[in-house]
């Protein structure tokens, strides 16, 4: 028998029981769809994170308060010991040509007239923030050093804030209110887009001194340090640890590169993928058991046919491959349904969450189809073995 003949015979057998075949493939279909979607989501997510972190700059490192043990889990913010003096010291004592950009940020409600937007990240910075982050106003201007020195009430808006408060109109020259302080809008930043639910354009930039006054603190949230060449980052970070170590205890600060942040995020998303993948795997398993069940039923139903085929000259491998390929056809059809289902799912998801671009990954489709074939082979093996080893005489007498 040629592979084509096997495929043809299998398709005929599967088509002979349309409803039953369809129901049987459902399990594998759902499993495959789940695998495709989850992997696509997770690939998409890690791509976005990568894009985001790379957007921050590969020549950047960060000085932040050390994470308190369990802080990430309990959600309590760590207490910062970073002061302006640390930033100045870094700038003064470094051997590299670095841009040291201190930031103090806090969530606050921003108002304009009757409009209000809560949960806006208000970041106090120096003008060099633009160079450090390579992020500049799309319209208007950022504030200057003199604005910082004289604590001038000016602000640069992220795009989402402008849209929310000015209903699509131009915010330049207008006034916003943060914590009772009136600030004049001098610029609107370039859009940085969105990461999951985190809107990076939901920010307002104000002079660092103004932020210190509004939030009543002199500590810094973190310090960005941009190094001219990415290759210099490890050396620059070592230097920063040495400089800061003179005035801070090791558990009071943390120096890390964007690359490290990226790795952390990627390893988290890898775990995520693996977890969701195993959930999908379980549904494939269940689908496979369904196929095994229906194949056993099919072998019993067609016992006489098997006996006849043997009487007509079928060898054991012929029967084995016939039923195995039938199981694989069933399972592969399930994989194809699943692929269609996943495209449908992606379509629905993009309608429900327009901000999250979910594109079905071809790798995931290939993987799921491969899995569906493997599932058919694995779970079809036992029924096919049983069929192949039936005694022809008894099989012919079966009723």
């Amino acid at each position, binding site marked *: 028998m040629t592979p084509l003949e096997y495929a043809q015979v299998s398709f005929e057998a599967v088509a002979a029981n349309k409803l039953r075949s369809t129901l049987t493939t459902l399990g594998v279909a759902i499993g495959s769809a789940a695998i495709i979607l989850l992997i696509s989501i997770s690939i998409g997510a890690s791509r976005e994170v990568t894009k985001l972190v790379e957007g921050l700059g590969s020549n950047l490192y960060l000085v932040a308060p050390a994470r308190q043990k369990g802080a990430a889990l309990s959600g309590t913010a760590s207490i910062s010991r970073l002061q302006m003096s640390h930033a100045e010291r870094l700038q003064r004592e470094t051997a590299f040509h670095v841009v040291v950009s201190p930031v103090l940020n806090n969530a606050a409600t921003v108002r304009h007239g009757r409009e209000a937007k809560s949960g806006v990240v208000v970041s106090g910075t120096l003008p060099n923030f633009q160079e450090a982050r390579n992020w500049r106003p799309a319209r208007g201007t950022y504030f200057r050093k003199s604005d910082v020195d004289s604590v001038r009430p000016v602000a640069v808006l992220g795009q989402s804030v402008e849209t929310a408060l000015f209903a699509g109109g131009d915010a330049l020259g207008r006034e916003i209110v943060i914590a009772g302080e009136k600030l004049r809008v001098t610029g609107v930043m370039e859009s940085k887009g969105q990461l999951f639910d985190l809107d990076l354009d939901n920010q307002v930039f104000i002079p660092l001194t103004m932020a210190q006054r509004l939030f009543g603190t002199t500590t810094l949230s973190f310090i960005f340090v941009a190094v001219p060449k990415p290759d210099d980052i490890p050396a620059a970070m070592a230097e920063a640890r040495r400089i800061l170590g003179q005035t801070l205890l090791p558990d009071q600060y943390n120096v890390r590169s964007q690359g490290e942040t990226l790795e952390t995020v990627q390893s988290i998303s890898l775990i995520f993928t693996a977890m969701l993948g195993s959930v999908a795997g379980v549904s494939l398993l269940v689908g496979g058991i369904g196929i095994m069940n229906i194949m056993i039923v099919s072998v019993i139903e067609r016992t006489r046919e098997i006996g006849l085929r043997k009487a007509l*000259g079928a*060898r054991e491998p012929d029967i084995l491959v016939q039923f195995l390929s039938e199981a694989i056809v069933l399972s592969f059809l399930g994989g194809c349904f699943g692929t269609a289902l996943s495209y449908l799912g992606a379509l629905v998801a993009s309608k429900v969450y327009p901000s999250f671009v979910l594109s079905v990954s071809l790798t995931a489709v290939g993987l799921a189809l491969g899995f569906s074939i493997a599932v058919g082979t694995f779970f079809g093996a036992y029924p096919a073995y049983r069929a192949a080893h039936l005694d*022809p005489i008894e099989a012919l007498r079966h009723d």
Partner: protein
Amino acid sequence: MVRVKDLVKTYHLEGLEVPALRRLSLTVEAGAFVAIMGPSGCGKSTLLNLLGCLDRPDEGTLEIDGVDVSRMSRADLAHLRSRKIGFVFQTFHLLSRATALSNVMLPFVYSGYPHDKRRPRAEELLSYVGLQDRMKHRPNQMSGGQQQRVAIARALANDPQILLADEPTGNLDSRSGLEITALLERLNREGKTIIMVTHNRELAEHAERIFHLLDGVLIRDEVVVARRSANELVGAVAGEMQP
């Protein structure tokens, strides 16, 4: 030629030994038409299954065309079945979801018959058995006699030398039974070796010899003196079957 010597086959049923064949010997010359008769349970089907290489004997030898097949591997036996032997069953054993044509083409799959010749050959065979108008019919759209003729066409697919028929008329009315026997007779005239199990004495008399079995042994090898012939049949039947 089929030669059987001291054939022993014993079934084991829940620890009980059931002897089906006990040192049975017989010879069927190539091109012969023989009938096998005997009471129920005497071992006729067991013998036919052994002759058809569907099973292997416990003891004794079975030669087909001078080759001892009694110790052959299952794969070799399968090969032999597809080339040398055609089966006709009491209950036809047609695939119910397939057309007459597809049923006749089924054996080609296992003999590696050339693809382009399969369909013409099957059509030729169906015409030969008088079913040129029923090629696209499914088994449940045909009478018992027609179904058995499809089965005979299927048995002829790979042009085997030997046709084994286990009560081929057992499920048919007497007229259809006669038609089928006449068909076998004609195949015999054209050179096939036919071995037919039957309970019907009159149909058995279409054969040249009758082997009488009892309790797994041959008790009588009868040469049919007044051999019946399909030529005596109703003209309509004979006419229907001449292409």
